[in-house]
């Protein structure tokens, strides 16, 4: 059923008192897509998901999920909430069993726990899990009804780098199975490496969307070459350099032609004179910065462990 929308949100409005949490947000997700909603804290990401999940009623706009109302679609949707949601006195396996029953299904907890990287923890009480383990159990809960649409609210917040990568692998495999994935994140790297399409949200509206590559390309083709070169001078006057910055031996050169610049650098300094060369294109952070004048990471996240 190519082209049929898994999620269709039009003109969504949600107010909390005088605050517009979501102010006219449009979102269309095709069946089988992997979409990340990227934005700083308080941008309205979670509220948007909660309306799609049927946990909150919109103050305005239309919402269709899998061709149905959010409430009626629940059976076919897997949900990972950002907070809590676990019975402290149940074990991991029992928690999966409990919520599986809420969907009217019987879950085999062992392979499901293996999938999310909680192998061997089936008999552990949820109150004795670490923050990252709890989050992974939440992700397992989102899968216990074999859903067509998986909604993950900041699935890797609070995870260590290894667990984060394993979670990305899991999300990719769920996507390869043909499931539609909608996730929120405030991690630039997560949106860039994981999502087919990124929807950038700020202050309750979509400010830009597209594939990570397309979003970045709209900013232009300039890249930054950073390098350490001792006793070098005049690198900023090399032909391809648009502008340059210097901090002792460390140079940052912006260019349209990275290949040409690297050749010129090698010719000038020789291979031995160049150290720590890094070429970096613009990131989604630059896209957000260009659009809003602010940085995504500037808003601290309450769940952040670091």
């Amino acid at each position, binding site marked *: 059923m190519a082209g049929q929308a898994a999620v269709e949100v039009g003109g969504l409005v949600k107010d*909390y008192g005088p605050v517009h949490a979501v102010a006219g947000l449009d979102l269309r997700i095709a069946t089988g897509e992997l979409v990340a909603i990227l934005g700083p804290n308080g941008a309205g990401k979670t509220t948007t998901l909660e309306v799609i999940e049927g*946990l909150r009623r919109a103050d305005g706009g239309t919402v269709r999920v899998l061709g149905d109302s959010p409430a009626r679609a629940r059976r076919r949707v897997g949900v990972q909430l950002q907070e809590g*949601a676990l*019975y402290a*006195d149940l074990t991991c396996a029992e928690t999966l*069993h409990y919520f599986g029953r809420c969907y*009217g299904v019987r879950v085999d907890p062992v392979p499901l726990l293996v999938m999310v990287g909680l192998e061997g923890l089936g008999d552990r009480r949820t109150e004795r899990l670490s923050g990252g383990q709890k989050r992974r159990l939440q992700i397992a809960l989102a899968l*216990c009804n074999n859903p067509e649409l998986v909604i993950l609210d900041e699935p890797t917040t609070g995870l260590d780098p290894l667990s984060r990568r394993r979670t990305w692998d899991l999300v990719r495999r769920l996507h390869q199975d043909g499931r539609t994935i909608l996730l929120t994140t405030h991690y630039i790297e997560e949106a860039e490496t994981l999502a087919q399409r990124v929807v950038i949200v700020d202050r309750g509206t979509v400010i830009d969307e597209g594939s990570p590559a397309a979003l970045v390309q709209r900013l232009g083709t300039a890249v930054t070459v950073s390098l350490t070169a001792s006793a070098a001078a005049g690198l900023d006057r090399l032909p391809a350099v648009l502008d340059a910055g210097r901090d002792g031996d460390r140079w940052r050169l912006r260019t349209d032609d990275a290949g040409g610049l690297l050749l010129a650098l090698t010719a000038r300094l020789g291979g031995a004179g160049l150290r720590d060369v890094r070429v970096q294109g613009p990131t989604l952070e630059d896209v957000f910065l260009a659009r809003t004048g602010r940085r995504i990471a500037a808003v601290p996240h309450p769940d952040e462990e670091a």
Partner: protein
Amino acid sequence: MQERGGTRLAEITCPASGGAAGTFLELVRMNLLILRRNRQILVFNVLVPLLMILIFGGLFQSHPAMVAVAGPARAVAVLRSALPAHSFTVERLSRAAARRAVADGSASVALIVPGGGTRPLRVTVVENAANVTDNGARTAVAEAAVGRLNQVLLGLPPAAVPVVATVAATGGTRSSSLASSDYIQFLTPGVLAYAVFTAGVLGAGLRTVTDRERGTLRRVRATPLPIGSFLGAQILSQLVLVAVQVVVLLGVARLVYGVGVGPDPAGLAGLTLVGALCFLAFGFLIAGFARGEQAALTIGNLFSLPQLFVAGIFFPISQSPTWLQALSSVMPLRYFSDGLRGLMAEGQSLGAVAGDLAVLAGLGLVALVLAATTFRFEPVGASR
């Protein structure tokens, strides 16, 4: 992480058998598991009331109550085996001596058993008119004893209650203090009422607030489970906890102090069920108003602690000043405790405590309607 993990998801989950009823019973089972694992629930709902019965019962246990019997030796032997030895001593006396013993307070009650002839036995129960508050309990004990006499001596079914003539002894010089058997008869239904009351008001209510504030309620709401099934499973598992309270408290009271359940066990079960549901509704109502666990605990305690002391759990409210009696009459727990006491200690049937039952049912319905309108899924402290 397993490589085939993603593709196996369809095999990991399969439709559960048993349909909606199977789901419901499974949720009840899981709730009971949670209740059993939470030590606080066990301590506050079962252990504390049990200690109340054991300690207060023991505190007022000066000596076993004496039952004076005038009649054939066989009747005395039957009564000795029928009445628990730690609560009663059975003494064989002449008719005149038995009456004197009741009058001077050395015997709690006297039973005058005729030598033979009548079926059923016409046993005369002699009580001390000075001990009005305890005579209900005494009569219950005496009736049970006489029933046993008829059963063993004449082979009549215990249900065939004999005609009992109650004669007030005159010339009583001192009013004996509440003997252990009498006070424990008074105390046990009161403590049972309080235990069921707090389990509903504080236990279930607090757990609802915890589930809500932690986000468990909203996670359940994100599933297709009808909310009625979820709450129904919570209520049914709570009633199982109440059944455990009843069995443990009444079982221990019977084993240690020989406290009986009275003549109408089915009525006792019915009144307990109505009381439990009523106070469960109050618990949900408090959960609806409270902004967090701490607030719920405070409101619950403000609601329940005055009732513990004024609703006549530990002492008869009829002996208190009028203003205290007036105060206690607006306390829901008073009606539950009075009703249970009527059934257990005063030998009444459910019909006789129908007024208490009606008050509890009415209050429960009001609380239920209010609880339904204030029920919330979302954490009150939610920022988004």
